[in-house]
């Protein structure tokens, strides 16, 4: 977990070690204090208090006996394994599309960023209305085109969860595509020109040039996206509200559901149960980022 040391360390090492702090270190402590205060008051204390609330084994028994919890855990895994991998593959593909030198692609990339630039609440509510079975735009169109009633989108747990995943992809695809574009632009063009001369196919160029240089970035992005998606509350809560019949909850909405039902110890226990999923990912990311 070593943070890379910069040159000023050597300067510090040469100086004789004072017993008392140097004036600049005193200033440093003063300047670090505001963040430390915030950290203690709003991270250390709440987390400690939360863990204290979650200490009772009985709440874990109650949690594991709640079918909604099991369903939420499965939904979370589907969200992560299917949703994130689908999103990252599309992002990898689109990053190749957006580095093409075309005027109209440049314009499209400006529009493509919109989902990331606008707040998620109004757009999620917009999709929610679009999918309303009676008055929504989608079923209106289906009725006009085929004469049949469309599916009851958000009242079917499978479709509703798929829609929530789709919503999540819609919102965060631009960000990851942007990151992967910077990764692709960092690859030397000489390699591609040489491959072109050798008559390499599109797939060979990807397999032997693009992928090896992007591999690390791609995996880092996937893991980071998984961590963030674990906390994606809005896509599920505002689109499906966890319904129908609490079948589309994920772990991040489940805690809030218990909180609203005034079952605080269950809420904290469900969060503690998410930690085996979160902590390994966090540990791995910290190792990566502090190299």
């Amino acid at each position, binding site marked *: *977990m070593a*943070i*890379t040391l*910069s040159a*000023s*360390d050597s*300067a510090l090492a040469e100086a004789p070690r004072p017993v008392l*702090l140097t004036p600049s*270190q005193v*200033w*440093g*402590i003063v*300047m670090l204090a505001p*963040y430390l205060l*915030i*950290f203690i*008051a*709003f*991270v250390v*204390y*709440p*987390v400690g208090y939360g863990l204290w609330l979650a200490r009772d084994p009985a709440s874990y028994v109650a949690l594991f006996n709640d079918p909604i919890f099991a369903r939420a855990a499965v939904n979370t895994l589907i969200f992560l394994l299917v949703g994130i991998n689908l999103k990252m593959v599309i992002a990898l593909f*689109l990053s190749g*599309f957006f580095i093409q030198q075309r005027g*109209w692609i440049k314009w*499209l990339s400006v*529009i493509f*960023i*919109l*989902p990331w630039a606008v*707040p998620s*609440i*109004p757009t*999620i*509510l*917009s*999709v929610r*209305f679009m999918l309303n079975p009676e008055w929504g735009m989608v079923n209106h*169109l289906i*009725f006009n085109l085929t004469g049949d009633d469309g599916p009851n989108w958000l009242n079917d747990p499978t479709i509703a969860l798929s829609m929530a995943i789709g919503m999540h992809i*819609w919102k965060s695809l*631009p960000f990851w595509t942007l990151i992967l574009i910077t990764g692709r632009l960092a690859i030397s063009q000489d390699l591609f020109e040489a491959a072109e001369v050798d008559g390499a196919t599109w797939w060979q160029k990807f397999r032997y040039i693009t992928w090896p240089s992007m591999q690390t*970035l791609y995996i*880092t992005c996937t893991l*980071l996206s998984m961590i963030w998606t674990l*906390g*994606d*509350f809005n896509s599920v*809560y*505002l689109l499906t*509200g966890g319904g129908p019949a609490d079948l589309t909850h994920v772990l*991040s909405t489940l*805690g*809030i559901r218990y909180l609203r039902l005034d079952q*605080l110890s269950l809420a*904290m226990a469900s969060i503690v149960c998410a930690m085996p999923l*979160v902590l390994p*990912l*966090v540990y791995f990311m*910290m190792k990566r980022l502090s190299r």
Partner: protein
Amino acid sequence: MKLPTLREVGTEARLLLIGIPVFIWTMIPIYHMFLFAISPKEDAFSGKLWPDHPTLHNFSIVFHQQHYFLRDFWVQFGNSVVIAVAVGALTLIIATCAAYAISRLRVPGSRVVMNLALFTYFIPAAFLAVPMYRTMGKYGLLNNDWSLILAMVTIASPYAIWVLKQASDKLPVELDEAAVMDGASPLQIFRLVYVPLMMPSLVAIGTYAVLLAWNEYLYAFLLLSNDKAITLPVALGNFLAADDSPWELLMTTGFIYALPPAAVYYAFKRYMVGGLTAGAVKS
């Protein structure tokens, strides 16, 4: 000028085959919102792709607060602005000082602080929400703007500190040494050397924190519940409470709410892309 070859036409066609679906996919929810915003009530539910009589009447209803759901629109808009600006300012002050202390002053233990901050950054905010809600209740801050401001500063600071630390590690240490030679105090170096040099990163981080606070729903909805205290996204969510909620007004309000952050994002895009994406993922 030469005519395009068949191969070039083929490539262009294939690119369009990707580009057009991408455009449609991106625009659907936003267009749908816009469509509702300019539709009179009777057109909004007819399923037409363009209203027969486009109108700006919905905007006038929102601006004049002429609906039960919108009676506190301007108060809530004001809350959103005040909270976003306060979060931006506080995050900047706290994170800049912390990054300076960690990167330039080399305070003992600063590596630990950096790692703790990074750890907080990775824990999803939704999991911190429940304990945070209880803690704010204990501090007696519920329903007070400060609860949301402090919560958002807590969430925004770790990433801000990390990005600013990365940026300040790149500043040559000779600058500090030269300033020390000239007899500058750490505070003078901070004010006269460090902050001016860090400006691009500071703009990026300020924008990041403002947008984060403006867009936040979960914390706002947990910590604020009084109609006069809530921010716009919570007010939008409250529309869902009633079965007969006026969708066209909800979408109009949503559209108004979405415009400022989109404008800010595009205005500061070059800072955001350079300053933030580089920091977000280091390969």
